[in-house]
């Protein structure tokens, strides 16, 4: 397998972009990435996206975006794994370069969620769950996460106030990130008194509905060394899936797919969890942030909330979790999120992330979740 490097990144601000659709968002991020990579043109495009079909009536996204973006008649296709589409697209793009088939690949994530009214958008997002045995019963995506949260809080005797440390930290980090959607600070009191979405889960436990696009350009070693002095090595990748019917899983307090994917990525990168300097992890809801810390091997099961409240994982700590503000406050343009995370980690390692910086970061990890813990990728980058 060939070594693969990230040689360019490009992001749009995560926002409600009333003036931009899928194609405009994509083109903005794509050309920023191409310029960042010294104007090298990708020879293939892999697009992560979840809802173009249900919310924008657009299938055939690879050809649609490669054409509009002016990338030429290159191979291009969409990869879909719900909110994990971006990370999964990267996993596919990585294998195109690693295998020797293509030398330079653009992995992009793009999502346009805000045109539709929110009930339509939440119905589109609910398609990540089991249609006949979850959605059929009226379970929204948020309510499935609320079930996990309730179970975890009861089992480990964690109060909502303690758990609220996660979104408070995320908003604080996002307040310094120019690409973030929610750039304001919040308090624990605001979290635990915010509107109930699906009891016990409240508005400020949830990521916002977002539009955005992110692109990274990855290349083989010989190409990478020619075009940049700061190539970032893709040191490890991993992916795993889990039973989609959540109630039928053996454990409701952990994500087995994350444990598996992390194990693969750690072993490929030849590192231990304690070697990590910076993380971008998938906190679509507060509970997923804390469960991820545990399942990545950074906290004992049931202890992540306690550690967070002691100041662990905050800026200055090793590892720092979600200096971008995470899905919670950077925003969550679902199929693009995984690519944002990888671009943010690459910038942290290069030292040019424009928000909370992790100084001298050498090794970073991105984890991206599709469904309620069903399709998970872990990507480890190294300076």
């Amino acid at each position, binding site marked *: 397998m060939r070594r693969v490097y990230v040689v360019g990144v490009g992001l749009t601000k995560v926002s409600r972009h009333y003036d931009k659709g899928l194609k405009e968002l994509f083109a903005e991020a794509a050309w920023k990435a191409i310029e960042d990579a010294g104007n090298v043109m990708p020879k293939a495009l892999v697009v992560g996206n979840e809802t173009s079909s249900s919310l924008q009536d657009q299938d055939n996204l690879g050809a649609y975006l490669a054409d509009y973006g002016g990338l030429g008649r290159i191979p291009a296709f969409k990869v879909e794994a719900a909110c994990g589409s971006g990370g999964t697209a990267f996993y596919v793009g990585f294998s195109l370069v690693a295998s020797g088939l293509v030398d330079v690949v653009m992995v992009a994530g793009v999502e346009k969620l805000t045109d539709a009214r929110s009930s339509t958008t939440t119905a589109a997002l609910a398609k990540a769950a089991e249609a006949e045995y979850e959605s059929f019963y009226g*379970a929204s995506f948020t309510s499935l996460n609320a079930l996990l949260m309730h179970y975890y809080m009861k089992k480990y005797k964690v109060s909502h106030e303690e758990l609220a440390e996660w979104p408070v930290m995320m908003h604080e980090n996002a307040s310094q990130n120019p690409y973030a959607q929610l750039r304001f600070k919040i308090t624990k009191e605001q979290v635990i008194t915010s509107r109930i979405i699906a009891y016990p889960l409240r508005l400020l436990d949830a990521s916002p509905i977002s539009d955005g696009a992110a692109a990274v350009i990855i290349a083989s070693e010989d190409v990478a060394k020619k075009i940049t002095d700061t190539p970032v090595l893709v040191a490890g990748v991993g992916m795993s899936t889990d039973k989609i019917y959540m109630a039928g899983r053996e454990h409701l307090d952990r994500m087995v797919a994350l444990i598996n994917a992390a194990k693969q990525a750690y072993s490929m990168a030849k590192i231990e969890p304690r070697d990590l300097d910076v993380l971008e992890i998938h906190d679509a809801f507060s509970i997923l942030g804390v469960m991820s810390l545990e399942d990545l091997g950074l906290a004992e099961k049931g202890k992540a909330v306690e550690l967070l409240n002691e100041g662990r994982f905050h800026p200055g700590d090793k590892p720092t979790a979600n200096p971008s503000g995470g899905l919670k406050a950077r925003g969550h343009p679902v199929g693009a999120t995984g690519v944002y995370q990888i671009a943010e980690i690459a910038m942290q390692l290069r030292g040019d992330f424009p928000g909370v910086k992790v100084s001298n970061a050498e090794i970073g990890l991105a984890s991206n979740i599709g469904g309620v813990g069903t399709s998970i990728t872990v990507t480890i980058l190294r300076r």
Partner: protein
Amino acid sequence: MIYPARIWRERHAHYRLVGVKCKKCGAVHYPPRPVCDKCGSRELEEIELPRKGKLISYAILHDPPTGYRDQAPLIIGIIELENGVRVLASLTDVNEKELKIGMEVEAVLRRINRKEEYGVIPYALKFRPIMI
């Protein structure tokens, strides 16, 4: 989409709580599946699951999805049946103040939603507190 044929295909699981039991290792699965998740065997037989169990987690939706709004607040639960199999279902005939993790519940056939685009009113099992 609630297509009539789709409802019909899944009727045994939705109406009678039919799952499958592995003939090799004895594991019981719901919903039914062709391959045992535990041992990989493809020899499974249909069985009806117990209709009683206890609530192990729940969420209360004050703004349920379209088609379910008349049931607000909609309560979604995970129920551990008497044989240990877990299912997801909504709860009925219960005041949200009475809800408690650990409470005993039983299955009852009810209308699931109001989506009538294809001319069917879907029914399936919901769970309610056990009436003594």
